């Protein structure tokens, strides 16, 4: 018997329909079970960091802090700086395009025929995303973000902190909620009809065309599910926060202002358990950032060509970025949860697709891991000539989220030397 889920929902009533959508139960349903909530924030600085200012010479716990790490000295025991890592199989020449594979590890970004794979956050969202209002938050200070679907489609990123804030924390008027619910219902029934019809066409296609139809059908199904869960969450009041709606910064050059808004928003989202997975793409703007002492665009500075003047300015910009990350870590540290502080339950990963922006090298990537219950405080140094794949770190991070898996992308195992506490 062909029974569309729409009709089924109609006859059985929406509350009855819910248990069917396993992944999408609201967090309240879980609140009885006390389970350690684990979270992850992945941040990409698309122009990287000037390595000599970041990586200490010595490895281990006794390292002398570099100019950038000095700025994080308060958190020394909360983070690990990791040098030498690279994505397996990466090559120079398409360094900026490698942001596409930053969280996926897929090889050949930027080349014709490149096909991406699922990003770390989305992989995690498949397992733990259903526990919160928003399965994962994909933020970008400018343009595209970091999240990719299983089939290799890019997930559009949120660029507007005010819009995200309103989605997370502002309840609409009863009328608006009503309209929104009707819109979701209409949308869902349209999708349902289309899916039934398109499914019947499947047999009439050759293999590559069928692949494309399948991707469409999967998208329809996933959107239906998302809309169904949005309908439920629509009826659940949103958490109240003290913060004001952030004011979006229209100046694309203000990379730090934008980054801070995103960090603050992330902090609120984690604190209210609206989501447990966040990706943040910082900017690599060609415009001159409004920072005293900086007269050239960030991208321009990153192509320093060893010019001392440019290196000085680059240092100012990068130090400001590191400071902003430090402030974010402090906020997480100060927020208490039942059993720990928020930093203890949140793995914060700061990295880049570029190891050296001036030569477009994609080796020896800057990697900083904070919080999340790892044993921190050291400089973990790998041989840049023969490093383990960066995805090994990702596998460690996934396992830290409580996801039982021993593979992710091209990982060969977890990252040696990065231990957990407890």
């Amino acid at each position, binding site marked *: 018997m062909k029974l569309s889920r729409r009709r089924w929902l109609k006859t059985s009533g929406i509350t009855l329909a819910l248990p069917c959508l396993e992944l999408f139960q609201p967090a309240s349903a879980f609140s009885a079970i006390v389970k350690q909530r684990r979270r992850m924030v992945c941040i990409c600085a698309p122009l990287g960091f000037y390595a000599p200012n970041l990586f200490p010479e010595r490895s281990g716990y006794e390292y002398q802090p570099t100019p950038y790490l000095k700025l994080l000295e308060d958190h020394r025991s909360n983070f690990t700086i990791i040098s030498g890592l690279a994505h397996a199989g990466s090559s120079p020449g398409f360094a900026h395009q490698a942001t596409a594979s930053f969280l996926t590890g897929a090889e050949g970004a*930027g080349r014709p025929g*490149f096909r991406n794979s699922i990003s770390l956050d989305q992989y995690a969202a498949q397992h733990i995303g259903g526990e919160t209002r928003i399965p994962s938050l994909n933020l970008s200070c400018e343009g595209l973000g970091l999240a990719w679907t299983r089939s290799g489609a890019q997930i559009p990123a949120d660029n507007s902190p005010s819009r995200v804030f309103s989605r997370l924390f502002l309840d609409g008027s009863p009328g608006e909620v009503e309209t929104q619910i009707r819109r979701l219902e209409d949308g869902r029934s*349209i999708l349902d009809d289309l899916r039934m019809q398109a499914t019947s066409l499947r047999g009439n296609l*050759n293999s590559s065309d069928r692949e494309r139809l399948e991707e*469409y059908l999967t*998208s329809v199904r*996933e959107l239906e599910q998302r809309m169904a869960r949005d309908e439920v969450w629509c009826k659940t009041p949103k958490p109240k926060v003290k913060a004001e709606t952030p004011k979006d910064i*229209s100046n694309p050059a203000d990379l730090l202002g934008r980054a801070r808004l995103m960090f603050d928003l992330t902090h609120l989202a984690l604190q209210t358990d609206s989501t447990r997975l966040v990706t943040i793409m910082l900017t690599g703007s060609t415009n001159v950032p409004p920072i005293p002492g900086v007269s050239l665009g960030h991208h*321009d500075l990153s192509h320093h060509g060893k010019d001392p003047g440019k290196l000085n300015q680059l240092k100012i910009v990068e130090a400001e970025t590191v400071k902003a990350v430090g402030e974010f870590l402090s906020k997480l540290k100060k927020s208490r949860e039942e059993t720990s502080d928020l930093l203890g339950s949140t793995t914060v990963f700061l990295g880049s697709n570029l190891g050296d922006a001036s*030569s477009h090298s994609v080796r020896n990537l800057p990697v900083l891991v904070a919080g999340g219950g790892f044993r921190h405080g050291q400089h973990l140094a790998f041989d840049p000539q023969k490093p383990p794949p960066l995805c090994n770190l990702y596998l460690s991070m996934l396992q830290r989220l409580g996801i039982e898996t021993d593979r992710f992308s091209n990982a060969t195992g977890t990252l040696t030397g990065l231990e957990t506490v407890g």
Partner: protein
Amino acid sequence: MAVIWKLSKWAILGVSRFSIESIFILSMMLMIPLSVVAVDKEDAQKADIASVPFEAARNLFESYCRNCHIGPDVKGDFRLTDLHSDFTDRKNRDLWESLALQLQSGTMPPAKKPRPPADNVKQILDWIGGEMAAAQVAEKAGVGPVPGRVLTRRLTRTEYINTIRDLLKVDIDLTDLLPAETNATGFETRAETLHVSSHLLESYMAAADRAIDAAIASAPRPRTFSRRYDIKNERSIRPNGSVYRHLDDGVAIFATSVPSNIQVTLWQYMTRARGRYRFRISGYGYQTEKPIAFHVKVGPMNAAAQQQTLGYFDLPAGAAAVVEFERSIDPEQTIRIVADGLRTSTREVEKIGVENYTGPGLVIQWVEIEGPLIENWPPPSHKALFGDLPQRAIKGAEGSGRVEVISTQPLVEAERILTDFARRAFRRPVTASDMAPVFSRVRDKLEKHATFEEAVRIGLRAVLLSPDFLFLKEPAGKADAYALASRLSYFLWSSMPDDALYELAGNGQLHNPATLHEQVERMLNDSKAVAFTENFAGQWLGLGAIDATMPDPTLYPEFDDILKDSCVRETLLFFDEILKNDLSLTNFVSSDFAMLNGRMAEHYGISGVEGMAFRKVPVPPDGRRGGLLTMTSILKVTANGTTTSPVLRGAWVLERILGTPPPKPTAEIEAVEPDIRGATTIREQLALHRERVECASCHAVIDPPGFALESYDVIGGWRDRYRSIGAGDPVVVDGRRMRYRQGPIVDPSYRLSDGREFRDIGGYKQLLLSDKASLARALAAKLLAYATGSEPGLAERAEIEAIVARLQKKGYGLRSLIHEVALSPVLQGRGIEQVTSPPTPEKTEKSIPTKRDQRP
């Protein structure tokens, strides 16, 4: 031994396929049951003709490639033993493809190593091509007889927006709702990279809602305002101070500074409704002999950063003139006028005093704005959907002025409207089963007491989310005239077919070569063909990256927004000029003319061109300008804002112009770290790299164009010496000492991989021109890739060769090439075979007649 065994194994496997085919034909002729013959195939293949290509391939690889490409440590990550004979395996096909590419372009074997005889190479390439074609046909033929190779794909963002524009007759911006295509290289139309996700579908929902809202008139006709604003009343322009001098007939502006808001903002004016507006700006160039350029920006009143440039214009010296233009604009926006090229700072003008300043300025007298311009109400978009159906005030919102369409026969009318809409949206006749989900939704709505308009709206949404709308579907196994109409219109217009094309598809005329020729001409002459230039040329040349880098202002103080804007216009107009007049595509390499305005001409050191208007200008015969390679746009997108890289530029020329992309650098190779301190040149740094054996073979082909283009800096300016921020000689321009210095001397001379030498870019261009067929081959492949959604491979090699041969007789005209591509069986969806039967509708199910179908 193992190697040879492996090679022989390929032979057995590969040849068996040939044998089966030849045996099949034989058995058909003799009417012998296949099963009987098949038993002997193993024996038959050994002495068969079919084994010849494999023998040849094996011998060739054995003699020429084994040192580097067989064994545990192969070069370039390419291992011959990875190849096998199963061409149905796509990974294997890709390996063969890259091998063939190396053989074809002559990159491999590397220079100074023994090369196989050309005849053998050709024989092997032909054989690989044949295998490829056969495998592709087999793959496609999963469901039917021989189809084309065009892949089903979704519309690109640009195509979606254009299609919505033509389908709903609305002029709206949807770019903020739809994610940009993420295919960083190659064409956006590439089927493989056009993914769909639930997030994209959600964007489509939002876009459809906005488009439907814009199409349906649910409010009274907006009032059109027309007013002239005297610039002297503008509060941002202080009377006689700073950089503004009030004259009897206007205000002269001597300097601008956008960050400090020193420009002319029309605070007196704000748009009320979305729509098309006509602007007229009156003024003239002051204290100058030359026209004064300016640009107009539009945006919200108080957000300086959200301004969009409406265009660059100029006003003549001395005598007042009016600049007039029309643009579509959002509500609550105003315009800003920014004078360009005044070459002074606000500080300098203020220091001298605005009354005493004698330098050039721009006088603005008044601005006249009229809009929104509405010819009919309800607008054509509304009429196209609802015809003359009456409207009445929305129940419960009577006072608001909002209205909705009503009907006495809601279900009948809704079904009629939606059937006609779906036919246009799906770009083919529709069937009852196409419409079933749409109708069921409409009926459901009406049963739940939705109004007629609400029911129609949900039907429209359903159509716009259907895969039949979102995808360019390629019906398997049939040469479908409607699919061809779509292919042509998305090729040349990046949008849906118009009525004329649709009708020709319907009456079976479209496959007729004469008709097709006529249609291609008509389409190229249509204003919608601007999309072809913008999208094809733009993506072929990578012009989308024009904003990716900001030239270092210390090294390149002369770079400005007019130059950036103009250089892209230059390239697109140049492409248009060649297209319009069917000029030879060799002009892309070397031409005796350029399309320039005053700013570009100044940048290129060509005198006698003034103002912002572009025109065709002859260029000196030294080869420094003329052709694509030496254009600012290309030279900028291949540089990083600070330094140039011969490697990136060389690879760009190989990939985009010669169609022979170099192999990817292996993971072990580190990039050269640029140094702008003036002590060393990139060429010196590269020399070390090039001397390494594993790098030499690629650099032998990458470096020649790269070195020739070293004569151009990151903004396409000519240079004899590199600019440096460290060591070097001081530079003075227009009496002012520059912050950069003259560094080391540029050496653009080099030799091709075959040893032919050139002195500079002019010489290099001449060498490229000696092989016109290669240029044509490369461009034909690009056009096919763009038009069909996948790059042609070896399977299409023969077809491309045939196109090139015909094109040679037509003087390599670009327009002729487009005709060839449109007529090609590859685009026609005919595959290898010729269409013999008249085109049939996609489905056997009877299509629902609509108004249009009933026309004679």
